[in-house]
Structures are given as C-alpha cells and as structure tokens.
C-alpha cells in the first residue's frame, strides 16, 4: 500500500479534485491544511521548495515521489491503478 500525503488549502480547487480522486479510487491519504498549520507549511516549503498547493507526496515500495499540482494521469501511473 502506498502512503499518500496531500498538502492543501481549503480554497484550492485542484486540492479538492485530488482528494475526490483518492476517495473515488479508495486510496487512503493524510491531509495537511497549510493554511492553519504554519509549521507544516514551512516544512513543506523547505522540503519541496514549493510555495503552492497541492503538493502530493507518495511513498510506495520504499520510493518517495513529490508531485506538484494535480495530474490524474500521473497519479494513476505512480499508484499503479487503472
């Protein structure tokens, strides 16, 4: 099973689409709302160099993928789902 983390803000449309996609495919994920959690926001910026959401981190088979933005085709490839 892949471990999925999504950094989001409540007003981010693409974050909502990404979460809908995970729910639709039955993929569990952890959400971090960076608009309320400034510490996590800072960590995310340091880790990814990105000051924008969504950022999705997928840990699968010991490999970590950092995805900026929502690209359904790319997520399906990384997660290995149809």
């Amino acid at each position, binding site marked *: 099973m892949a471990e999925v983390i999504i950094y989001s*803000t409540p*007003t*981010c*449309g*693409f*974050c*909502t*689409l990404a979460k*809908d996609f995970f729910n639709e495919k039955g993929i569990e994920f952890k959400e971090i709302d*960076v*608009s309320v959690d*400034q510490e996590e*926001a800072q960590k995310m*910026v340091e880790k990814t*160099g*990105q*000051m*924008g*959401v*969504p950022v999705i981190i997928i840990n699968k088979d010991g490999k970590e993928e950092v995805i*900026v933005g929502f*690209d*359904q*085709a790319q997520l*399906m490839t990384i997660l290995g789902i149809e």
Partner: protein
Amino acid sequence: MYDIIIIGGGPAAVAVGVYAARKKMKTAFVADQIGGQSIVSDGIENWIGEINIAGPILAKKLKDHIENYKDEIEMRFPARADKIEKNEDGTFSVFIGEEKLKTKTIVVCTGGRHRKLGVLGEEKFNGRGVVYCATCDAPFFKEKDVVVVGGGNSGLEAVVDLLKYADKIYLIARNGKLRGDSVTQEEIIDNEKVEIIYHSEVQEVLGDKMVEGVKIKNLDGDEKLIDVQGVFVEIGSVPNSEIVGELVDLDEWGNIKIDFKNQATSCEGVFAAGDVTDTIFRQNNIAVGDGIKALLSAYDFMKKN
C-alpha cells in the same frame, strides 16, 4: 471511425458530449481534466441555476453529467490529444500518443491557460513565490509583502484573497485605472494594506532561492525595485490552440477564428467552442451555449457528408 471527437474537458466540451450522446453519435471524449478553468474559483455566482457554486463542485457536476453517458460515448479520460491530422478523404486522425483515432468531425474545446509575464526570473521562481492561483496559495503569504500584477477582475480578486494574509499588497496595473468590477474595486481601494501602482509593468522577478523582489518600470521608463516575497500573476489567459494551429485559421492572439452562427472553423468538419475561440466573451454559460451550437453544426455536417 468516430462521428465526432471532442477535445477538452471544460463546460463547452461537456455540453458537446452530452448532446452528442443524445444524438447517438459515435463519440470519443478526450480530456486530461474535467471541469474547466473555474476549478480554481472559490465561488461562482453567475452559473445560471445556482446562486453560488464552488469551482470544484461545478467540476464534479460536469464530470458526473458526462460520465452518465459513459456507455454511449467513449471516455478517454485522463488522456491528452497530441496531434490532429486531416486525411485525404476529408476525415481526421486524432493522436493520443501513438494511438490514432479516426473521425468525421472534431470539436475543439481546449480552453485557455494562465498568461505568463514572460520576464526574467518568472520560470525560475514558479512555485517559489511566483503564483498563478491566488485562491489556492494566498495562505502561504501570511505576514509577507506581495505584488499582484493585473488590474482586471482576477487581479482584484487576488488582492481580496491576500487581504486576509499578507501585510502589504502592491497592485501593479498597466493602465491609469483598474478594469475590474466596481464592487471589488471599492473593497480594496481604501484599504491601507493596498498600494496601487498605475502605468507600470514588471520587468524582472528577483531573488536567490525564493522570490525577494520585483523590478517594475513605469510609462516614463523609470525603474523601481520593490521588496516582496510573492508575485501573483493575473494578466488574463492565452488560448490552448496549438493542437490545431496548422489546421485552422487563428487570430493574432492565437484564438481559433469561428463563424459565430455555427462555431465552424476555417477547416471543414472542425468546430470549436469556449475560451479557445475568438468569442468576445469568456464565460462558462457562453461556453456551454457555444458548445451546443458546435455540436448541432457538427451533426448537420456529418449528415450532409
């Protein structure tokens, strides 16, 4: 051989798809995303039939509507059409990677994308302080100083989004006045956090790892540096017309030229609707109506040929 291939996933494309299914046309719907540019909108108050609807909810409704016909039309989603060729017999080939789909007609509904500044530093700092979605990313700029570029509606709305977070917001307008709605103008114009700089353009985005400032230039050629940690770019959109660039006539901005009566392009059998066309008004409701016009025209064309 398809009767029709629809390229795109915004409101225009979904309208075409729903009508195509109901006309029982053999249809392929090729989209890498469904929902259109309003996905990023916090609340849409002019989508007719809804008093207020969030962008992602509208996107979901559009997706549900088109997927309701998934037994009638072939959903190629998520997929990206890479190339279109016109065949000698008047039909077309649409390529998704190596795969080739043949069709009698095409409706192009590929919409628009964010216009970039096209200045030094913009690409380097994309996601590192340069922002194209204010509603998404404003929370990162708590207690920071930012510039918003663009005096139209989206620029003013970005300022409103940022008021909750940023300490200081410079709004850079190219003209001597703002173009956005007067309701929104009133909301920001007297706010002490906001400073409006008219007749100016951004020349360069500066910084080391993250944005640290911008260089702006006014009409007289005077340059000025402003220290900011964020640059919000809201200067309109450009059409995603590259895929048919060699097939149909475009206007000087790259919009697909259409016949406003029937959405026909300069290439027989190819129709277009929504923000990718040279329509005067870029609106969700208009994209839907134009999409339906395009479909009905494509249907007539198919019957005649």
